């Protein structure tokens, strides 16, 4: 403290002078940065509206501040005519067929003005000339002829593009006028139709899921029956296979009949044995086909079971899906009726 009191004058002097230097330096830098002392060239700018404009709205060209919009007024033809002051070092950038893009930032409601340079890079625009914004007919023509290209704040550009799209699609000379709304109406109709279908399906599913007067559930019964059929089919194909094997043995035995009974009944074999042999021979020809059919049935049994299983799973999923759709906010039941 003694040290401070002894040098208090010096400390306080330094404390105040340093603050003074900082503020003087900052103000000086700010004035230089804002090009207050730089020569400016006056142009006129024409906008469709004054939204976001202020008395010192900066104008940028490729990220550089090339000038400011100062005073602005409403003209007789309901456009905004503003003074556009361009700094000396950027004077040459102001060429013919250039335009301005004013985009209002939806977050801050401040506007950013972008200078869109025309194609004639060396044809300087005379001082005092008018530069149109692209939201007025003159600017729209430049844009349509691709003489200037739009750039700017990403969010504002998206909104501007959406606005332009909406405006263009609703123009009287546009054959697609109202297409967007028609699509919306169609979508609404489709949604309504889908709601009806899902409602009906839901009712059907509910009725299927409900037990009948005997306490049986049709859906469950169907699945059980299908399983029983599958099982019976498997047993049946097994039996068919077994019978076919026996038949094969019999046919083999009867194709060469050498027994006593055969000799007694039909010694030359032409009355009984031959016709039987022929029949059995024909039957023998059919056997491979029967065998193949049997094999086919055996192989298809697995497929059939899988299909039945898949059918059961699909029906479960369908039930869940319809439940979800039914509870969904778009076309489902009212909130009060949804399942908790």
């Amino acid at each position, binding site marked *: 403290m003694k040290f401070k009191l002894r040098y208090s*004058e010096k400390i306080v002097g330094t404390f*105040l002078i340093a*603050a003074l230097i900082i*503020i003087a330096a900052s103000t000086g830098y*700010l004035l230089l940065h804002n090009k207050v002392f730089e020569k400016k060239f006056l142009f006129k700018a024409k906008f469709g509206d004054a939204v976001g404009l202020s008395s010192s709205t900066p104008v940028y060209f490729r990220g550089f501040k090339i000038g400011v919009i100062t005073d602005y007024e409403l003209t007789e033809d309901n456009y905004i005519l503003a003074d556009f002051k361009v700094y000396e070092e950027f004077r040459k950038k102001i060429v013919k067929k250039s335009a301005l893009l004013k985009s209002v930032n939806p977050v*801050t409601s401040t506007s950013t003005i972008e200078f869109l340079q025309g194609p004639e890079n060396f044809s300087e625009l005379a001082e005092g000339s008018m530069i149109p914004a692209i939201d007025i007919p003159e600017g729209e023509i430049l844009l349509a002829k691709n003489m200037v290209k739009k750039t700017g704040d*990403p969010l504002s550009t998206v909104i501007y593009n959406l606005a332009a799209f909406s405006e263009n699609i609703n123009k009287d000379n546009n054959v697609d006028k109202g297409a967007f709304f028609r699509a919306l109406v169609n979508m609404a109709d489709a949604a309504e139709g889908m709601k009806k279908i899902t409602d009906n399906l839901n009712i059907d599913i509910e009725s299927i899921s409900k037990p009948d007067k005997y306490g049986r559930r049709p859906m469950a019964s169907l699945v059980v029956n299908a399983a029983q059929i599958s099982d019976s089919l498997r047993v049946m194909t097994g039996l068919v296979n077994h019978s076919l094997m026996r038949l094969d043995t019999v046919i083999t035995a009867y194709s060469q009949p050498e027994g006593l009974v055969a000799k007694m009944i039909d010694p030359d074999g032409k009355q009984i044995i031959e016709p039987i042999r022929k029949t059995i021979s024909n039957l023998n020809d059919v056997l491979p086909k029967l065998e193949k059919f049997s094999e086919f049935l055996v192989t298809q049994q697995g497929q059939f079971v899988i299909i039945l299983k898949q059918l059961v799973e699909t029906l479960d999923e369908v039930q869940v899906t319809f439940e979800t759709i039914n509870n969904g906010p778009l076309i489902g039941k009212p909130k009060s009726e949804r399942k908790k």
Partner: protein
Amino acid sequence: MQQISFALGRQTLLLYRKSISVFSFVLEIIYELKNFFLQRKITRLILIRQILFTGFEALGLIAFVAVAVGGIIILEGSAILPGFGQSKLLYTILVTVILRELGGLLTAFIIIARSGTAIAAELGNMVVNQEVESLVSFGISPILYLVVPRVLGVVLSMIALNIYFNIAALAGGWFMAYLFAPIPIPDFLYKLFSEISVSDITSSFIKSLFFGFIIAVVSSYQGLQVNFASTEVPQRTIKAVVLSLSWVIIVDILITAIMYLV
């Protein structure tokens, strides 16, 4: 009904008398400022010590708070703004919050807490110890000798501290921005100064001028309002703090509104 109207009338008269008292106190300070510069040798030491105490000794605390606030603004802004493509607003927010509002307000709050209370307590104790009466008996104006140097000291300290606060907060902001995405100081300054306008600096200066004046006047007035008992001192100190805070916020709103209207 009669009692209510009586109470209302009494309060109105009391408020009127207080307003007159404060107004004449402020006018006397302004009048004595001229004499202060004429007789500056007598009160220069008080002024220097006041600046030393209110300004220089508070520099560390001010710098700490400022760096933290600047860093927090960048930290919060970096987390939120890029989400909707508005990273460039970081500098606008930094300038708006620090230069226009928080710089002046936080500096004022710190000065109220440190110096406002000290001035009120010191002057209150001087009244209790009859030091103020002694000055009057010697023909020395207590306003000229005690109040004017304090008012000048607090105003100058407030202005200087506000400048340091702004610089420290912007430095804190740069430091935090550098941690997220290394950005050279010239680039940072270029973007920052693109957002600063002369009106921001003017607004900041005017606010610190008024805040300093309010804090010093309210604290001195409350200190001198102590009558005899030492128990009055803390009461008046609390009142000085509450009134200073209230008036600083009211004046801040008024200046901000005027700056936006202009």
